[in-house]
């Protein structure tokens, strides 16, 4: 693995090549491996090691970035020149701030201090970093044997990685983060049905391949011979992965720049009752079930923030530059507290910032999925959603499909599998119609970044079509 000291030495060499007023370097990369299986066979199996540096140079309001994965002197000289060539020819932008200072990197942020945010837990586990191809194959073998025992076909992945993220700049800022991640995803296929489970964690010890395979197999078996029921508005029990992949479409709109750009569904809605009073959402990089680096694309520490309180959006997240613009805009005083919160993307960029460590607050009276089903007279249990896309950016209407385990609930029991539905559902309405929630858990899907989210029982979920399987 690239070490902090090695990166510091590379940064020092980059600075020697630079003529710019300011220089910032982002380091990234690591070791990763992924064992992929389908038809009860490992059919793809790969490993990679790669590190890169992205060099940002600035000249008096002009800035640009260039990246390379070569650290020899010629390559570093070239990457600095490429960055400077792109920066020099621009018009000067009076809004561009100097690089973040070393003092900013060591600060904790107002809200963090107020909430006595604990230090980031270690996210690097040797047992994850040392996983071998043979160990991954052993686990896949266990998954396949469960599939064969149930006369099913297994497909999925078992991945592991060890990665670094670091940032150094010419104002003395220096941040470094290492972590590991293991991930297992399993689809069990029957002739006319399927089941799915996925989980990830920095610590491989937290994952149980056999348990995931058994649940996926049970879902495939239970949803065999699916019935077709007409499209319409139903009460749904959304498992956490289905919640994750829908709510994920909302959080890019929680950046201050999205408001300034007038591309956010939160425009004119901050401080108003937007969701149900039972919805409370944090962004908290230090949460025990979260992962990722505790600093943003400029090296600013990520603050713990309460974004939504009792269904009211209370505040946004900000990169340093966006906070400065917002304070000088017509929106100041209308969008909650304005300060750099440590959620910015590397500069230059068009998106600004976003909260990437979402944690839903546990409900006052959490219910298990089984309790949600038991309390439902007629409804639909959804394992997973797929191919979700935004239909309407302001009403936040999303379309997509159910997949890999959709069930009819009648009189408090799961009675059969169902053919899959297409939905067209406003995210705002969905989060206004939540009747019950489970205790939030770390969840991974395919359409959004990982979060800590609950299962939800939602009324009037809008299914508009039924597909053929």
């Amino acid at each position, binding site marked *: 693995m690239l070490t902090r000291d090695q990166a510091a030495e590379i940064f020092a060499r980059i600075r020697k090549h630079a003529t710019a007023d300011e220089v910032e370097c982002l380091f990234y990369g690591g070791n990763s*491996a992924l064992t992929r*299986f*389908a*038809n009860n*066979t*490992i059919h793809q*199996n*790969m*490993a*990679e*090691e*790669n590190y890169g540096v992205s060099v940002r140079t600035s000249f008096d309001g002009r800035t*640009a*970035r260039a*990246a390379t*994965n*070569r650290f020899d002197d010629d390559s570093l000289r070239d*990457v600095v020149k490429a960055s400077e060539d*792109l920066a020099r*020819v621009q*018009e000067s*932008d009076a*809004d561009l701030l100097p690089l973040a200072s070393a003092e900013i990197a060591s600060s904790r942020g107002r809200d963090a201090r107020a909430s006595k945010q604990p230090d980031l837990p270690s996210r690097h586990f040797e047992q994850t970093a040392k996983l*071998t191809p043979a160990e991954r*194959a*052993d686990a*896949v*073998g266990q998954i*396949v044997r469960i599939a064969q025992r149930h006369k099913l*076909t297994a*497909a999925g*992945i078992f*991945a592991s990685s060890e990665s670094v993220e670091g940032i150094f700049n010419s104002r003395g800022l220096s941040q470094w983060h290492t972590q590991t991640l293991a991930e297992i*995803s*399993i689809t069990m296929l029957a002739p006319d049905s*399927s089941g*799915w489970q996925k989980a990830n964690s920095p610590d491989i010890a937290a994952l149980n391949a056999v348990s995931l395979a058994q649940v996926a197999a049970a879902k495939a078996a239970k949803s065999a011979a699916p019935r077709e029921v007409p499209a319409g508005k139903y009460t749904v029990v959304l498992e956490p992965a289905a919640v994750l992949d829908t709510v994920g479409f909302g959080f890019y709109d929680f950046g201050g720049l999205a408001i300034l*750009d*007038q*591309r956010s569904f939160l425009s004119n809605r901050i401080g108003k009752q937007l969701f149900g009073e039972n919805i409370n959402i944090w962004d908290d990089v230090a949460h025990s079930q979260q992962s990722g680096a505790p600093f943003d694309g400029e090296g600013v520490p990520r603050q713990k923030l309460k974004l939504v309180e009792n269904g009211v959006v209370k505040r946004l997240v900000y990169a340093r530059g966006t906070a400065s613009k917002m304070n000088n805009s017509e929106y100041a005083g209308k969008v909650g507290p304005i300060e750099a919160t440590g959620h910015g993307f590397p500069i230059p960029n*068009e998106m600004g910032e976003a909260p990437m460590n979402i944690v839903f607050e546990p409900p006052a009276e959490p219910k298990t999925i089984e309790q949600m089903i038991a309390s439902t007279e007629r409804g639909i249990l959804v394992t997973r959603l797929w*191919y*979700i896309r935004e*239909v*309407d950016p*302001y*009403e936040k*209407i999303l*379309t*997509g*499909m159910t*997949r890999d385990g959709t069930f009819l609930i009648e009189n408090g029991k799961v009675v059969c599998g169902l053919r*899959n539905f*297409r939905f*067209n559902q406003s995210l705002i309405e969905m989060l206004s119609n939540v009747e019950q929630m489970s205790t939030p858990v770390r969840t991974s899907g*395919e359409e959004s970044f990982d979060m800590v989210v609950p299962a939800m029982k939602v009324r009037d979920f809008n299914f*508009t079509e039924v*597909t*053929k*399987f």
Partner: protein
Amino acid sequence: MNDLSSWALNTASVRGATYADVRVVHDRSRGLATKNGKIGNASDAQSLGMSVRVLVNGAWGFASSADMGRDAVENTAARAVDIAKASAQVKQSDVKLVPEQAVKADWTTPHKIDPFSTSIEQNLALLEKVDAELRAVKGVTLAETNMNFRREEQWFFSSEGAEIHQTKYTTGAGYVAYAFAGNEIQKRSYPNSFGGQWQNKGYELIDELKLVENARRIGEEAVALHSADQCPAGVFDIILESSQLGLQIHESVGHPIELDRVLGMEANFAGTSFLTLEKLRTLKYGSELVNVVADARQEHGPGLGTFAFDDEGVPAQCTPIITNGLFTGYLSSRETASVVGLQRSGGTLRAEGWNRLPMIRMTNISILPGQKPLTLEQLISSTDHAILFQTNRSWSIDDKRYNFQFGTEIGWEIKNGKRARMLKNPSYSGFTTGFWNSMDAICSRDEWTLWGTPNCGKGQPQQVMGTGHGASPARFRKVKVGSAYS
């Protein structure tokens, strides 16, 4: 490069590989963007590395490294062999490859102007001019422009003796005007969504796109959508302009014909396909006007799926996919061709970069234009009542590729052969084969454009690939419209 390939191939062979290939890729890209008159993006990136893919004990292994010194290359090859041996612990049968003649070749994307040779000032000046045109329209609240270049140089060597050097250039550009007012965000993009138009070409593409000339109209349409009527819900005849038809092909033809999906290899992520093997040459996919090819050859045009050889050394080919409405072909690789009994791979295996496994990807999946001369205006003139859909805004399809729903940025009601009114928030939905069987007219070659889709995601870890889709506007009868807002 020959030394490097020898180190890798020899190591793989000595350690037990029955087949091995080596790819070395040097990738360079540049991205420029403006947003409301300021720089949105100015970035350059280079990446160089190598990978080794091996078959050992009838199973695949793959390893990659940015370090191309002899020790690292040999270690990477050895690692690939170890990984393949682990793969062989869980298999039902041995991987077999259909034969392919090993060749030595050199090929470069035909281009007039190397985009990396153009001045950055010139690039930014053009984008700023477009930006100014968009924001000159009252009511445009956000203007975004972009221009992107990529050069991908690859050396491919195989244990069968192939030595192929290819250099591909990609150029893309486009812009978006947003208008936020009341409770609506409307937008218009040009020449297409997904960052505009993308082709395997040099900088000459930028001049062809007439970016500045269309900016004012696009800004005005974004604002005008606020006072347009909502697209009605119901069953209507519809006309898709060519970029939307290109995406319709991508989602409802291109993906389901991928043999790896058909054979279940993508079941956990991208999904499978309704095009099970017994449907080949028996399924009536579309009406007799529907003729679709998968064509990676240079003569098809400068699509994002144009190359001379795929990433396992198979020459670019043209495969008939739908012939007069009959389903006639899949996208295949050497491995999947062997599974289904084809004599030869269709040559569609591609990787995102040096550190990713090549997999079946769409090449240029294009619908052939109508034989009889027919312009879009003539098609509209011959239509009593329909809705015309322009420029994709949302897209979604199930994991077997039956049920789809698309939304576009703008629609037009066609009445008595004329554009009667602008419609906002148009959407349509349907089932793949029913939809293609309802096509009753397609415009001719003059209206045919080879669109680039730069953002096709597939695989684990996910790889993003560019694909090409040639299309001319076409009409479909009795399609469900408007359910996205129902």
